[in-house]
């Protein structure tokens, strides 16, 4: 194409300009992929919390879990507007504590299969094996999330040690791109045992394992909002208890994703500034160097519009090429980082078609716009003066 030949006139200069934009686009792609993953995580969590309220004492995220009594469950179930309340026992998989760098930590979660009375809307697909049933109540069986299964390198039928206790894997979930990927789901009784074992001996002696829960999931009746339930639970149980609804979750994590969006926008603006200015400079130099040529073209009948189009197309091409290069390198980096992190269960990047398309369109548009001013100047050159330019 004539365009590519024009870019090849000054190979070093074109290369430098393209590299500048490509670096910005690469950063956009990498951080965009990280943001996609974050949004999937948060989005998944938000979806999960939408139709229910979770009761706990203290905060799971600060690792400060204090047990609830099973009798609390009956109290809550008797509240007007509550359709079902079911106890859960959650704890970190690793007894050392401390979350992984980004995303959610690996957890053991225990509950009663069917305790939701069919009200749970967050469906997880099975990749292999089967779900837990009521018959598993006293067994040491588990269904694993996709990331956890991969990290532990097990398949259905294998035995796996959760907090030093042997479990049989009966099922593995399909990827959800959010928290459950890192969970080991066990029957309530097994989770209660594991939880009690993790407590200091003095406290262990005072607790009956089968009597405790770390959280209660409460499902409202049709037409009743989780916020209404939340108020009623708080009234009933008092200030020591924390009740979290979807709104609370969104508020909590909203600032997190807002910061991420800010970082992303900042990167976009920065690469816009740097890349755009660099392209304007490059095109201005190209126009100056081709002054006589522009004079010839205008003299033999090229309209001003045609000259403008030529310049804008060339600078758009610079943007497009840079976008493609930045995308390819960014994709390579996200794949590399994901592969490196997969073993430890940290798959932090998700390069979607949307992110890729945005990167290309952004880069090309940036290039085109950067060409507007040099194009305008080129089109306004007087042909005769331009022809004689030394």
């Amino acid at each position, binding site marked *: 194409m004539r365009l590519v030949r024009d870019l090849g006139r000054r190979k070093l200069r074109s290369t430098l300009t393209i590299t500048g934009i490509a670096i910005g686009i690469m950063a956009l792609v990498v951080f965009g992929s990280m943001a996609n993953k974050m949004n999937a995580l948060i989005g998944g969590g938000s979806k999960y919390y939408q139709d229910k309220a979770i009761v706990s004492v203290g905060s799971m995220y600060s690792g400060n879990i204090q047990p609830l009594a099973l009798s609390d469950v009956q109290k809550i179930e008797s509240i007007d507007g509550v359709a079902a309340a079911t106890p859960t026992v959650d704890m970190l998989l690793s007894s050392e504590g401390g979350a992984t760098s980004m995303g959610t930590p690996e957890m053991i979660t225990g509950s009663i299969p069917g305790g939701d009375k069919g009200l749970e809307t967050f469906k997880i697909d099975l990749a292999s094996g089967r779900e837990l049933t009521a018959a598993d109540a006293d067994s040491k069986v588990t269904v694993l999330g996709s990331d956890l299964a991969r990290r532990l390198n097990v398949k259905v039928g294998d035995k796996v040690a959760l907090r030093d206790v042997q479990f049989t894997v009966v099922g593995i979930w399909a990827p959800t791109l959010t928290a459950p990927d890192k969970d080991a789901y066990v029957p309530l009784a097994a989770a209660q045992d594991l939880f009690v074992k993790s407590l200091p001996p003095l406290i262990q002696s005072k607790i009956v394992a089968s009597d405790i829960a770390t959280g209660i999931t409460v499902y409202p009746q049709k037409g009743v909002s989780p916020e209404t339930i939340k108020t009623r639970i708080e009234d009933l149980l008092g200030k020591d208890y924390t009740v979290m609804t979807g709104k609370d979750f969104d508020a909590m994590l909203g600032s997190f994703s807002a910061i991420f969006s800010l970082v992303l926008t900042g990167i976009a603006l920065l690469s816009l500034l740097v890349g755009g200015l660099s392209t304007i400079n490059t095109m201005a130099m190209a126009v100056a160097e081709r002054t006589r040529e522009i004079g010839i073209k205008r003299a033999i*009948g090229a309209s001003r519009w045609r000259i403008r189009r030529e310049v804008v197309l060339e600078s758009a091409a610079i943007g497009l090429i840079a976008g493609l290069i930045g995308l390819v390198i960014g994709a390579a980096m996200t794949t590399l980082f994901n592969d490196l992190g997969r073993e430890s269960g940290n798959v932090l990047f998700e390069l979607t078609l949307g992110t890729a398309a945005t990167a290309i369109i952004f880069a090309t548009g940036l290039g085109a716009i950067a060409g507007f001013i040099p194009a305008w100047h080129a089109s306004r050159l007087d042909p005769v003066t331009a022809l004689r330019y030394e």
Partner: protein
Amino acid sequence: MALLEGSNLRKTYRLSKRNTVEALKGVEISIEAGEMVAIMGPSGSGKSTLMHILGLLHTPDPNHGPAPELRLAGENVASLSDNARTRIRARRMGFVFQDFNLVPTLTALENVLLACEYAGIKGKVARDAAIEALGLVGLADRADHKPSELSGGEQQRVAIARALVNKPEIILADEPTGNLDSDRSTEVLALFRQFNREHGQTIVLVTHDSEVGEACDRVVKMRDGRIRNSGLRTGTPVMAVPAATAPATA
């Protein structure tokens, strides 16, 4: 009716805040179809300016005198917009300049095709016309060469092919032999004469090369922004020969 005629043509250029140059002080000129005319004069005589106005690259000044007139095939073109003038240049005129005629990144064929593109000729028609034009100047076999691979004389011939490809009503050439040695000059001149004699192509050349002047039917002499004499050369009369009665030439 003359093909291209103008009167009261004036042009003053402003070089800086206080420095203006009165390049044309009132010129009347008439070019008949089929003529090959040379415009000659010392530097500063206004000959290039006259050609720029005849070629619609600049417009004649409307003030400081009677209204200028400029007609191409009877149409008034004295005060057209830039777009309108550009369109006429593209479709009805051809240009050859002294040097640097060609786009360096394009081959000879592509350079000629540029003129087709601007004239609205596309596709196979354009390609065929371009190859034919290159053939007429004897460079059909060099169609894929870039200007850097062509000699000065060959580059000039490509420029002539480009000027011809849109079958213009008039070709304007500004010092076309200025940068060529005498052998190449003669070649280029011969091409112009051939197109004029055999095809009736109207050609206006600005030059200070007397050999070019002698090859033309008429010489317009300019000095200090005015025409000094616009007479026929003594010797061969000039009219373009209509195709029907064209004698067989050797």
